[in-house]
């Protein structure tokens, strides 16, 4: 090829690369597509073999997810006609809605605990990372290693001591307890990630701000924070993904008030037969917040994941 270039790929190369990416995307997205479609199937369709690619969509799974239902007699059903579309769906199965399910509150718990601990991790992490980056901290390297070492075992390895501590302190099944726990687990990651980003910001900017008449803290707010946004955004996403998806501690430490969605969703299966569409509906909705959060921050994320390497 005469116009060969080190930087610009040829059309063939582009085509091959594009095809490979498309195949990879298909493979990774298939389970999500499965979950998405199952959520709109009837229980019968959901376990049909071979799987139905084309089916008549229904909101039955979503209605089952958000409600509790009871079976009623023909007579009762005839005397109480459905008032709206979702009562109609339930009515057609010979049942009536007894009340809302707990999915809404569990989902809300996930939001409170996930975003709460993410905020706390990033907030504390930023302050700690700044201090480690800029100040002479005695035993700095040892402290940083100690912080990192808390991640060297799977968190669940300390499940029993934490369970006992939480019980003694009255933190079991509380929002504050779960936020505290997830923050503790995420903080080491946050400190290390953010320290890397803050190290990359030349100290000259802060010195310029000091000369320009600002205090150290004001310089931090006005000069360091805006430049650390990339790091803060990507750290926040990592923290949220962990806290949002965490299952083991949630099973162990929550059962009622503070139960998050991950331990709740599987329990849907047991209510009135194997209700896969309801489970799939729950899983679909569960994906949404992290997805939205990531999309909102994606402008920062791409640069963030390269750990500031492209900035200069």
């Amino acid at each position: 090829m005469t116009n060969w270039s080190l930087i610009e790929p040829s059309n063939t190369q582009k085509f091959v690369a594009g095809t490979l990416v498309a195949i990879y995307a298909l493979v990774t997205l298939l389970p999500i597509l499965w979950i998405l479609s199952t959520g709109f199937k009837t229980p019968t369709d959901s376990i049909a073999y071979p799987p139905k690619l084309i089916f008549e969509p229904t909101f039955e799974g979503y209605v089952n997810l958000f409600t509790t239902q009871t079976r009623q007699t023909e007579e009762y059903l005839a005397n109480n006609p459905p008032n709206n579309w979702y009562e109609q769906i339930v009515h057609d199965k010979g049942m009536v809605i007894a009340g809302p399910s707990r999915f809404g509150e569990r989902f809300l718990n996930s939001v409170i605990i996930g975003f709460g601990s993410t905020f706390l991790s990033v907030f504390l992490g930023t302050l700690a990372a700044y201090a480690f980056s800029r100040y002479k901290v005695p035993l700095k390297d040892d402290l940083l290693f100690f912080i990192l070492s808390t991640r060297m075992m799977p968190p669940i390895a300390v499940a029993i001591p934490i369970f006992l501590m939480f019980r003694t302190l009255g933190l079991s099944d509380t929002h504050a307890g779960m936020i505290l726990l997830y923050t503790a687990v995420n903080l080491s990651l946050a400190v290390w990630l953010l320290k890397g980003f803050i190290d990359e910001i030349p100290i000259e900017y802060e010195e310029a701000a000091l000369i320009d008449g600002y205090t150290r803290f004001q310089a931090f707010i006005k000069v360091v924070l805006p430049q650390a946004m990339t790091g803060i955004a990507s750290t926040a996403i990592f923290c949220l993904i962990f806290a949002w998806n965490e299952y083991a501690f949630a099973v162990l430490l929550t059962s009622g008030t503070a139960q998050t969605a991950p331990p709740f969703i599987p329990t849907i299966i047991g209510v009135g037969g194997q209700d896969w569409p309801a489970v799939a509906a729950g899983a679909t909705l569960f994906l949404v917040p992290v997805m939205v959060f990531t999309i909102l921050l994606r402008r920062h994320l791409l640069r963030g994941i390269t750990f500031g390497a492209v900035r200069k």
Partner: protein
Amino acid sequence: MAEVELRNISKSFGRIDAVKDVSLTISDGDFIVLLGPTGAGKTTTLRLVSGLEHPDGGTVFIDGHDVSKTTPAMRNVAMVFQQYSLYPHMTVYENLAFPLRSPLLKTPENQIKEKISEIAEVLQISHKLNNRTTELSGGEMQRVSIGRALVRNPSIYLMDEPLSSLDAKLRADLRVELKHIQADLGATLLYVTHDQIEAMTMASKIGVLEAGRLVQVGSPRDIYEDPVSLYVSGRLGLPRINTIPANIFPGAPIGATTLGLRSEHIELGAGLPANVIRLEHLGDQTQLHLEIEGHKIITLTDVHSQLQPDDIVHIQPKDPLYFDPSGNRVR
């Protein structure tokens, strides 16, 4: 503007003494250039005045007040850094407004606007005010950087090699501009450089630093013509001052071991024979490389000189500088 005085200030980092017992008075309207090679303590001296560093010993006075223990903000100094000085997340306008919006000044927005358009005019960056600083060329960045200092009315302007990252032409242009602005404003300036042309052309006084000590302060002409030591004599002058043993030529005073010869100290056509090694035609001048008794000498000659390598020319010193074994001047 105010008078700034350094009295016996010292600063060390670990075991390295960056600044040793420096005393210097910068009078109102002075343009003082600190000259010295890398590591001589120029930047540290500047940072001690700014408050970014605090002295281990000695006192910094601004306008008669001891400010040694205060923060940069409390000293009301403006500083231009060598690089990384513009806030990358702000526009040019926001950068220029940043010091004026500080909690210390809290300038009303209409005054900020007025001040910035005035300074932008002078620095010819008016058309760039809404650009992000990352979109500027090197020269524009440095102008904005200087502008951010000029929008204020500080006790003293501190500049740390502000032109060093620029190309030669831009450096020359900005040098002239900067000198103009300083003269117009009657500003007090402490300027750090290792570029002797900047020092010679802009300074009202030059301070020469050697390993943390201020070895000589004087007008550029004084420093050039009457250096106190071999070290100082080598800081100014192109081609650099030649040093050869004092006993090659007769007439050395007692105690002198080294003879310092600038181009104007070398008379061609009489005296001792020297070998021509090569000529360098630089256009406006021609440098003549000679060898006398095994010592190399570089001097200037006629631009259209027809000398060839291995020719013999006779040279003799005229009012040269003499130095003793430790490098001090012998008069």
